[in-house]
């Protein structure tokens, strides 16, 4: 590689993807979220132009075909036109969320956009000033579910000046993601690529140092657990080798934080502690607005106050109002009360009274009985719901919270 090649590697834009697990009750927050994936795309395009990139690589899941969003596909076409006007080519692979047979608005992309074939690993030369400076190997998801180990079909040619593998894959079977186009680090290393532009996993970062294999991550976090900086990579390949540089593109940060109330004496102190956490999250977000999920945990007298009807909602409402007025704003998406009674349930467990009987009863329900009970309760409630929410409830945890709730009422503050 005698000549330097610079390109931008992004993936998992998920244009139009529904934001899960967020209660964006405020119009400003809704508008920011709706615009965020598109703004991230704009920033990627802007980055290509400002970095004078040779080309852009998109490793799958540009949009969510299932959402049938014309607007998103039109926006993608518009972005590709901007790149085309600047003479920047784009190499795009379909992923499991936008497979080749997925819903399409039928919009024609510019000729400067190359979409990898779904039939086989395709080899494409990138020519600059009449000279091939890079070769890209890639394959699109023809359909949503791909379980074959495509990585084994990637093999560079000896005369490739710079070989880049583009693959939407789950390397190492990472939990929480569908195990599509599975690959291992050894398989990536054996293909002879100089750089692997990977997609599918939303957390950015390296998978392999040599050769460099990188997940671009999603350029805009889509749900509460996709916190921290999100963006894409500027990759530069030259005589020094291949180096990647992360650039944040998200418009809105997701953040999670917890406050331990062990030393908190009351609601006012709790509000102050929550405000401090928000300030920290705001500083961490580096000038971006943020959506913050707060967990309040620990044992203190605050538990009893929060357990009173309306108190937790009141605290959340106040926090939202305060933090939305700040610049940049923070939307406190949820304030989960995970506080515990000051007295451990063990104190009741050994007592002969009603509470002791209740605690022992709850202890006996752990495991299968609790699961059956939860399923019974949820089954009755969710049977006629328009959609079943993604609850992800642990039966034992629910049982424990129910036990503590009962104890809160049975053993008010005066008992302690």
């Amino acid at each position: 590689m005698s000549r330097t090649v610079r390109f931008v590697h992004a993936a998992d834009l998920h244009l139009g993807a529904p934001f899960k697990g967020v209660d964006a009750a405020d119009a400003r927050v809704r508008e920011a979220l709706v615009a965020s994936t598109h703004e991230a795309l704009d920033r990627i395009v802007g980055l290509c132009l400002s970095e004078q990139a040779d080309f852009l690589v998109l490793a799958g899941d540009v949009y969510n075909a299932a959402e049938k969003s014309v607007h998103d596909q039109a926006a993608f076409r518009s972005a590709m036109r901007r790149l085309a006007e600047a003479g920047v080519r784009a190499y795009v692979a379909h992923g499991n969320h936008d497979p080749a047979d997925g819903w399409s608005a039928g919009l024609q992309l510019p000729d400067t956009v190359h979409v990898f074939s779904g039939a086989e690993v395709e080899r494409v030369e990138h020519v600059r000033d009449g000279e091939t400076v890079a070769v890209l190997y890639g394959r699109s998801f023809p359909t949503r579910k791909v379980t074959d180990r495509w990585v084994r079909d990637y093999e560079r040619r000896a005369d490739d000046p710079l070989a880049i593998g583009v693959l939407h894959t789950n390397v190492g079977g990472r939990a929480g993601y569908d195990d599509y186009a599975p690959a291992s680090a050894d398989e990536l290393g054996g293909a002879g690529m100089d750089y692997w532009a990977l997609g599918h996993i939303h957390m950015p970062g390296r998978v392999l140092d040599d050769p460099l294999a990188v997940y671009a991550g999603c350029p805009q976090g889509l749900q509460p657990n996709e916190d921290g900086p999100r963006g894409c990579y500027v990759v530069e390949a030259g005589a020094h080798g291949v180096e990647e540089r992360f650039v944040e593109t998200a418009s809105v940060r997701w953040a999670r934080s917890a406050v331990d109330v062990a030393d908190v004496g009351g609601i006012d102190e709790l509000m102050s502690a929550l405000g401090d956490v928000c300030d920290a999250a705001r500083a961490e977000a580096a000038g971006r607005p943020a959506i913050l999920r707060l967990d309040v945990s620990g044992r203190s007298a605050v538990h009893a106050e929060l357990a009173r009807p309306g108190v937790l909602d009141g605290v959340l409402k106040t926090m939202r109002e305060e933090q939305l007025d700040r610049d940049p704003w923070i939307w406190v998406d949820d304030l989960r009360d995970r506080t515990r009674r000051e007295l451990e349930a063990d104190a009741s467990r050994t007592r002969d009274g009603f509470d002791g009987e209740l605690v022992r009863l709850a202890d006996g329900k752990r495991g299968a009985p609790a699961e059956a009970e939860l399923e019974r309760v949820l089954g009755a409630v969710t049977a006629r719901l328009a959609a079943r929410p993604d609850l992800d409830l642990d039966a034992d945890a629910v049982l424990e919270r129910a036990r503590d709730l009962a104890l809160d009422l049975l053993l008010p503050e005066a008992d302690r």
Partner: protein
Amino acid sequence: MRLRRIDAVRFGALPRDSSLGELGDALTVVVGPNEAGKTSYTTLVRHVLYGFPNARSSERQYVPVNDDRRAGRLVFADGAAEWVVERVDGTYGGTAEVRGPEADVFLERLTAGVTSDVYRSVFGFGLDELSDLATLSDIQQRLYATAAGLRVDPQQVRRQLKDRAETLWSAQGRKKRIHALNAELAEARRRVREAEKRADEFRSEHAELDRLVEESDGLQRAAREERLRAGRLTSQAVLAGQLESQIRSADAESERLHQALEEARAQAEKLDLDEGLLARAEAIDELAMRAEWFQDAVLRAEASAERAREARRVLAEALKSLGGGWDEARLAAVPVGTSVESAFDALEERLRETQRHLEETERLASEARETTQRVRDEATALSSSLDLLEDDAQRDAEVRLGAVIELLKHPPGTGGQRLPAAVAAGLALVMGVAGAVMGDWLVVAAALLPLGLAAYLAFGPAFSGEAAVSELLRAAGLKERPETGLLLALQTDLQRYLVLSRSLWEADGKLAVLEGKATEAARRHAEAAEAWDAWLAESGLTDAADPLVVRALLREVRGAQQARARVTEADVAATTARQACVTYGRKAEQAGLVKAEQVADPVLIAAAVRTAAEKLEGTRTAGRRADQLRAEGDRASAELARHEERTAKAVRELETILDDAGAANDAGVPELEVLAEMAAEEAERAEEAAREALRRRSELQGRLETVASEDAGARVRLEEAALLERLGKAVEEYAVTATALGLVEETLALYERERQPAILKRAEDIFDVMTAGRYRHVVTPLGSFDLSVEDAESRSKHGGHLSRGTAEQLYLALRLAYIENLRDVHRALPVLMDDVLVNFDDEGRQAAAATAIAEFAKERQVVFFTCHESVAELFAEASPDHVRLSLGRC
């Protein structure tokens, strides 16, 4: 600690300041007739502990006979101390005054956990209160909470949880929170489906758009081509018309050109031209052109001759003014130019400057000589008066001055130290006289020492100073020391002489320098005078040496030289002008305008030249007209040829256009115009079709772009996500609440099934004793006070169906069990019962109750009021060590 005495200070019908006491540690039975005040004392204890009821209360007021303020006192005591609680009626029931150790917390501790109502029902009760136990919710709650080891009623908790759960969801509910969220979610999902449907429509409409684009593009292309064809035909028709017109006008123009050509040729032949004159045209033109110059030359010759004459006259006068020695030759010898004047000025300045410098240096030298002489004369006179040595007066004056200065430092009479000498002599004298008087010779001898010292101080230094003064007088040239004033005058003269001597030396030096400068100035002035003379000779201006005279002479010579120069210039000008006139005449002769003898006659020459020039101009005009006519003929001929060619080309083009348009061979422009109109109509139809297709395309495209720009789907999906989130939280909260409810309900059921409250168990025991084993069990569902009893055969009987006596036994048993269970209530809080055994069915049950009460009193003090002696005796049997008190009728 126990209650020892009850003092009725002012209370109801009780005598003022009456007391009830000493009460026993365990059971005290107070026997008295009706109206003896049993109920009053029972009530008074409660009022002192909790306050008097206000006038609005429905409770009996126990107002004293004289309407005075109610007041009472309770005296508690243990082995070591006594506490007095006294309350007088007042605001908020009156303030209790407590005396005794830790008085401030005594009452609070005593009544902790027992409200006024509970006290009235449980601790200080009569028959009226006995059956009211079931209506006291506080006691109910206490009963079960205590049974459950809690302070709150589990049934209340169950209801709270049930309310919470039902706020979220219920099987039959429609407006619960989860139902409401579900309805919103269903609506959001409906809108999502609508958005997706619109996206599907977009896709098919986009395909329709592609087809419309292709169709409209095709129609536009066809319309463009048709319009081009129509335009082409129209252009061809216009062009054909133009060609026809062009052919017609070209024919007419050719005819006109023919005529013009013929006319030009005829006019040219009529013109007469003098060829001889035209041959000399160049010479005549030159002479005519210089005719005015010739006239000027004649005039210049005459004017120059006149100026020469005037200049000669002026020159003659100038030479005459200069004098006899001057003529034109000498005048010419004097150099001209500014350098002569510059040299003159420089020499004159130099001469004047050296003269001035010479005079100045001579003046300074003369002044120096006078000054030197004056100083010398003064010094000589002073030397003589001081009698200084003639050959070395200065050295002599310096020596003498030094001596005089030294003499002035040693004034006369400074030969010894006279005061110390006198002191020493005085001391010697005193010692000597004292020694003599005392006859002590040693003292006399010792006086010799100060005496010797005095002699030394008085005379020793004087011997050495006299010699030095003599030497100084000699050096100063004095025989003896004069007065100090004279010495000072001598010092001044000597110093004055030395100053004059130094001034004279300096004046001599200065004079020698000035004399040297004067000599140098004289030499320079001589050199300047010599250079001046040499310049005069060189310039031929030897008539005078004085610079002023020479400057005047030079000015006149310059005037004469200028006059001579003007003579020469005028002569040359006159000669030149005359020669030019002759030359002009020769040229006129050569042109044949004058004869040789007429060459010197300028008037004749001028007239001949003018005549010839006029003739030549006439001939030339005729020649130009002839040339013009020939050129016009040539142009008309060429234009004629071009017209004929264009006409032929237009004919050919017209034939081609008609062929292209597809017109018949014999067709013309009108047929062509018809074809163009038909093509235009066809183009209009094609364009209309293309416009319609484009309109439909734009409409569809606009609609699709609107759909593409809308992100309503994203918003509604975000709304759906929010609703799902809220729904999830609500469901989660419901799951927790419902599970908690289930736990509480299961625990309650367990209690009902397996664990009767301890109070009920104890009440069962007491009730069993009171009913002599008739009833074994007391049952009540947890959370209600729906009492039932079971007999030995487990036959259940509802509390409402019991006889009054049995029911009162049950309530008394429950009350005693309840109080026993109140382990956190102060042991000194007494129980006062007002004849509660009267309705018991038989004496056996009364005795059993008395036994139960006596047993109870071992743990908590009991004061039992009765008006029945039989009851008192039952107590006496049950508790022989009880205290008995009596009350008289009030």
